[in-house]
C-alpha cells in the first residue's frame, strides 16, 4: 500500500462512515422509524471508497438501489443523506426520493437507482459527455463509472451499455460488485458465463481487471491502473470486485438462502474494515489508537446525523406539486 498516512486515515474514515451509517440505519429500521425499502451497503465499503478516492467532483458515478456507500464515498453530505432517508424536506432530495434515489449531481453523483440495470446506460452518456469535453492540461479525461451488482449484469441494458461504450470509445468504467446474491438468488445460478462477470465485458472488447473487493489496497491499486488507462483515452474498462453484503437484501430479509454460519464467517474473514485495520497496524503504517480515534469521531458524527434527521423539518402536501418541471 503506497498511500500516505493522511490518505490511509481518510480512507479508513470514509469506510467507517459508511459502516456506521448502515449499522445505525439497521437499528433504526428495526424500530420502524424509517419508511420504504432500504438496502444496506455494509460489507462492501472497500469498493466504494477504493474507487471513489480516485475521483474528483467532475468525474461521474451512477449507483444502484444499494447506493448509500457510493453516495458517501463520492462526497454526499452525511446529514443530508440521513435526512433524506428520514423523508425530511431538508434531505438531499427534499424527501422526494428516499434511500433508493439519493443523488447529488454537483458532486458527480448521478443517482442511486431503483431500477436494476438502469445505471449503466446513464453512465455511458456521462462518459460520452466527458469525451466531448476532452482532456485536461495533464492529458487526462474525466471518467464516468457505472456501479452494478452481479444481478444487474444480467440486464440487457447493461449489455447494451457495455457495447455502446466500446463503440463510442467512451471513458466509462463498469464496476461490478459481485456480492454473490441478487435478492435471494445465488450468482452461480443467475450468471451463465462460467460464474464470471468480467469475461462478459471482455467479450465486448474491453480491458478488464478482477480484484478482491474486501481488500482495500487491492481495490485502490487496481483502480489506479484502471483509471490511468481510461483517463488516457483508451476507451472503456471493466472491473469485477468479489465482495460481501453483511445484511439482508433489504431490511427485514430473513436470509434463509445463506449457509449456516455464513454470516459469521464472512464477518470474521471478509470484513474489509477489519482487514484494513489489521494490515495497516501490522505494517506499522498506523497505530490502533489513530483508528480508535476515528471510530469514536465517526460514531458521534453519525449519531448526530440521526438526531438531526429525527428532528428535521417534515414536508407538507404542497411539496408534492413542486419540482415536476423547471417552472413548478
Amino acid at each position, binding site marked *: 500500500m503506497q498511500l500516505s498516512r493522511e490518505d490511509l486515515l481518510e480512507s479508513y474514515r470514509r469506510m467507517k462512515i459508511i459502516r456506521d451509517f448502515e449499522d445505525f440505519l439497521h437499528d433504526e429500521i428495526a424500530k420502524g422509524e424509517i419508511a420504504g425499502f432500504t438496502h444496506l451497503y455494509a460489507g462492501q465499503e472497500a469498493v466504494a471508497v477504493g474507487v471513489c478516492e480516485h475521483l474528483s467532483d467532475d468525474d461521474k458515478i451512477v449507483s444502484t438501489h444499494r447506493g448509500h456507500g457510493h453516495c458517501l464515498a463520492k462526497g454526499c453530505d452525511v446529514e443530508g443523506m440521513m435526512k433524506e432517508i428520514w423523508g425530511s424536506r431538508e434531505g438531499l432530495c427534499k424527501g422526494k426520493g428516499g434511500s*433508493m434515489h439519493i443523488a447529488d449531481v454537483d458532486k458527480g453523483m448521478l443517482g442511486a437507482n431503483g431500477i436494476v440495470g438502469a445505471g449503466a446506460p446513464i453512465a455511458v452518456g456521462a462518459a460520452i459527455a466527458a469525451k466531448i469535453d476532452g482532456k485536461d492540461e495533464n492529458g487526462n479525461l474525466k471518467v464516468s463509472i457505472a456501479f452494478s451488482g452481479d444481478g*444487474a449484469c*444480467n440486464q440487457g441494458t447493461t449489455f447494451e451499455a457495455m457495447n455502446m461504450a466500446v463503440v463510442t470509445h467512451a471513458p466509462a468504467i463498469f464496476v461490478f460488485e459481485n456480492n454473490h446474491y441478487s435478492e*435471494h*438468488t*445465488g450468482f452461480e445460478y443467475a450468471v451463465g458465463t462460467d460464474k464470471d462477470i468480467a469475461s462478459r465485458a471482455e467479450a465486448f472488447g474491453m480491458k478488464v481487471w478482477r480484484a478482491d473487493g474486501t481488500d482495500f489496497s487491492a481495490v485502490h491499486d487496481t483502480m489506479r491502473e484502471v483509471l490511468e488507462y481510461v483517463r488516457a483515452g483508451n476507451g472503456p474498462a471493466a472491473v469485477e470486485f468479489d465482495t460481501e453484503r453483511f445484511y439482508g437484501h433489504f431490511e427485514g430479509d430473513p436470509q434463509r*438462502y445463506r449457509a449456516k454460519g455464513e454470516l459469521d464467517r464472512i464477518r470474521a474473514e471478509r470484513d474489509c474494515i477489519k482487514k484494513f485495520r489489521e494490515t495497516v497496524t501490522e505494517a506499522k503504517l498506523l497505530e490502533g489508537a489513530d483508528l480508535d480515534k476515528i471510530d469514536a469521531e465517526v460514531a458521534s458524527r453519525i449519531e448526530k446525523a440521526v438526531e438531526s434527521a429525527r428532528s428535521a423539518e417534515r414536508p407538507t402536501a404542497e411539496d*408534492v406539486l413542486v419540482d415536476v418541471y423547471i417552472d413548478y
Partner: protein
Amino acid sequence: MARKMYRDAVRDTIFEEMKRDPNVVVLGEDVVGGMGTAGGPEAIGGIWSTSGGFYEAFGPDRVIDTPISESAIVGAAGGLALSGKRPIAELMFADFIGVSLDQIWNQIAKFRYMFGGKTKCPAIIRCIYGAGYNAAAQHSQSPHGILTGMPGLKVVMPSTPADVAGLMRQAIRDDDPVIFMEHKALYGMKGEVPDDPDFTIPFGHARLTRAGQDVTILATGMMVGMAEGAADKLAEDGIGADVIDLRTTSPLDEEAILDSVEVTGRLVIVDEAPPRCSLATDLAAIVANKAFASLKAPIEMVTAPHTPIPFARELESAYLPNPDKIEAAVRKALAYN
C-alpha cells in the same frame, strides 16, 4: 368457501391451475427463491410469497426462476404462449414494465392482430403495483392506464381475494394476453373465496359493491375500499352511492357504468394514477359521450396529481386518493345544480 388472504388467492389459484393444466408455466425473478444458494430452491419464495411450493410440486421446467432480465422474461412469455404454453410471468413491481415494454406493447399485445388472427397468445403478465409502502417513484406506480390503452391486452385489477381467484382462473384459461394487476397493499387483505375448482369471473363484468341513488363512484384495486369507505360515511348522512368496482379495465363494462349514471346523474371517478390520458379521463370521456343527457353535474375525478410518486410518508399520503377526498368530491357533485 375458504377465508384467505389476497396473496394466497393468487398463489392457490395458480397452483390449482398448474395441477389441472400441464401447459401452465410460471416465470420470474425469485419465483423460486434460493436458486444457486446454500439454502437451495425455495429457501425463500418470491418476495411477495405468491409462489410458495410451486417449484417442489412442478419442477424447474415449469417454474422458472429467471435472472434479472425483464425484457427476456416478458419476451419469453410471448414465445411460450405462441408455442402452446400458458405462461404466467411475474413483474415483481409493475414499474418494471418500463424495462420490458417493447415485448408487451409491440410484441405480445399485437401478435394475433398482426398475424391476421391466425394465432393466440395466452400469456399473463402479473404486475405488482400501487403505492402505500413509501417505496417512492420507481416502485409504487399504477400503470394500468397506459396498458389499458394498448389494443390487444386485457387488463385485470382485482380488489378482493375472491375476485383474485375468479379473475386469475379466468385469465389462465383465457386465450388472449392478460395484464394481471395485483395491488401490493391488498396482499394482506382477507376474504371468503369459493372452493369451486372452476370458479371464474368473466372479464368485462363490473361488481356493484354499494348501491345508492344519488351518485355513482367508479374505482379499481385499492381504490375500491376507499370508495366504499367514503360511501359508508355518506350513507350516515342519507346519501346513497353506487360503488362500482370495474374489475377489468379492458374489456370494460360500459353498460354497468352507464346504467348507474343514468339513475344517479352524478359521477365520481377514483383512480390511483396521475390524471392525464388516464383511466379516469377515459371513463369520463365515455360517460360524457354516451350519457351526457343523464348528467346533472360535472364529472368529478379523484386521482393522484400529475407528479411522480414522492417518498416521504406525508408526501405519499398527500399524493394518494383517500376516503376524505372521495367524500368531498361526492359532496361537490351533489352541491352542483
